[in-house]
């Protein structure tokens, strides 16, 4: 493992590093530049940074207008506001006219910690995924985030990118044969009994879960599904066929996110047991991020438990 960094930090650094190479890139924020980490970009490229104040709906539509003129805007605020408060702006002014804007939701999931339920987005994937033509991406570590940022700058269309607050392990930089492509999941570890399909900071947790399971004689495949939409259906189908059961894992409600996407696909294509791991359709709560994750069972042991369930279901127990 090569150290720890929050994906929001890696994001902020990547934006700044890529600014020179991509002159069409502009960055908008809603008075959260110090938290979303657009502050680095703002400092280096003040003419391409637009602080819209505490007005997320307005920011989102300003970005839409900028995109019509050929700029590539990245909008920034907390995920709960990006996907929630400005939902209809994303829907009607960015996605419907197919505009080239990346909507960035920082501080996704419950790992926001102390701020509590009002600031913990647990339905942002569901909201963004339900919009036709929207790409939804949630990188699992700082290394992957850097690659995702450049891929999204080059992507032409409406997209949602989720960042997370806590510093987490970097695992993809040393993963064998790792390459990043939007819409293509990555097998980080092979296995034959069950496949854990995870996204965001749940990916490193899933790798640890696989180690726990391995000690029990359960061979778990781990897929890093950084792009939730469009879903890498080929990889999901292969996992269902080869391992016979699936666990989905995300720092999101079990309703409508990665778990929803995998179930929707497999139920009509190749039904196998799918156990969804995430927040069980309840709001978040305050606490340190580690305590909150523990409270909701978003831990390697939590994932391992779901994997045991999936294997039992497969065996008909």
């Amino acid at each position, binding site marked *: 493992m090569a150290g720890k960094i929050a994906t929001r930090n890696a994001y902020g650094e990547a934006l700044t590093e890529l600014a020179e190479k991509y002159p069409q890139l502009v960055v908008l924020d809603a008075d959260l530049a110090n938290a979303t980490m657009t502050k680095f970009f703002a400092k280096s490229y003040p003419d391409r940074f637009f602080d819209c*104040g505490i007005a997320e709906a307005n920011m989102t539509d300003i970005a839409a*207008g900028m995109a*019509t003129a050929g700029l590539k805007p990245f909008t920034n605020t907390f995920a709960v506001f990006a996907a929630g408060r400005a939902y209809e702006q994303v829907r009607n002014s960015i996605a419907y006219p197919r505009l080239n804007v990346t909507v960035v939701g920082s501080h996704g999931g419950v790992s926001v910690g102390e701020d509590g339920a009002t600031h913990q987005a647990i339905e942002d994937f569901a909201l963004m995924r339900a919009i036709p033509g929207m790409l939804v991406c949630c990188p699992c570590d700082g290394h992957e985030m850097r690659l995702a940022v450049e891929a999204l700058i080059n992507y032409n269309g409406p997209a949602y990118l989720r960042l997370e607050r806590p510093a987490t392990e970097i695992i993809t930089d040393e993963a064998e044969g790792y390459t990043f492509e939007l819409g293509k999941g990555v097998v980080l570890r092979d296995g034959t009994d069950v496949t854990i399909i995870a996204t965001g900071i749940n990916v490193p947790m899933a790798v640890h879960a696989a180690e726990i399971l391995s000690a029990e004689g359960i061979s778990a495949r781990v897929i890093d599904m950084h792009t939730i939409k469009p879903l890498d259906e080929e990889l999901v189908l292969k996992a269902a066929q080869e391992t016979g059961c699936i666990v989905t894992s995300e720092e999101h409600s079990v309703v409508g996110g990665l778990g929803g996407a995998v179930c929707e696909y497999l139920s009509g294509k190749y039904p196998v047991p799918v156990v969804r791991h995430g927040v069980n359709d309840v709001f978040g709560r305050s606490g340190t991020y580690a305590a909150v994750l523990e409270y909701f069972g978003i831990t390697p042991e939590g994932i391992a438990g779901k994997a045991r369930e999936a294997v039992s279901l497969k065996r008909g127990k």
Partner: protein
Amino acid sequence: MDQIQSLKLTAAKARLLAVDAIHEAKSGHPGGSLSCMDALTALYFHEMKIDPANPAWEDRDRFVLSKGHCAPALYAVLALRGYYPEGDLKLLRSIKGHFSGHPDMVHIKGVDMSTGSLGQGLSCAVGMALAARTLKKDFRTYAMCGDGEIEEGQIWEAAMAAAKWKLGNLCVFLDNNGLQIDGPNDVVMPSAPLDKKFEAFNWNVITIDGHDIAQILDALAEARKCSEKPTLILMKTVKGKGVSFMEDQVGWHGKAPDDEQFAAAKAELEAAIAALEEKGE
């Protein structure tokens, strides 16, 4: 024919085209389409730097119909300006075509922004004006808001932002016909004094009669001179203007004329067109 006469004639023709399309579609919004038609005509036939043969021209001026339900007005003016044949308007709101109930920039030539959800278009226009500045281009951005629409809070977010960035390249019409679906603005949600509110938001405000072409042209010229502030042209208008039985009637906000009503509206508008043509000769 002098320029003002010519614009009046074009506006009259656009009114007939829009009402015809709404009648054909059996639904739509005639009231607000008719109240903003003179300003739209002045924009597309006098003010804006555009090229109908090249609708995606990067340096063109932009227009955002923030009150998107008045799409028939925009579609009619774009047709008369040569973006597509007038006959295409027969497909307004039809499953057979792409002339949707609200403007669709993906499918309709000349539409610069998809709108319809009230309160969003002005922010998009702010984004276009900011883009011009960022890209060091001199195109101007125009928008049309409704006086019911400004009840949306986002309008005021956009108004603050436009003033923050001193967007002198942004000029917005406010179609103040005084009526919205549920009744008079003053009853539904009193918004006066609109001029003072926008002035307080640091806008350059010009109040005019929105059916007086000369006043519209003067206001547009004055707006160009104001480089440090966005301009709001607050136009007093009559909802349903040009069709006597629709004028100032809230019931004509979102209702199509039946065959008999359309025949009467058509006769009135054709008479207006004939009178303007005669005057111009």
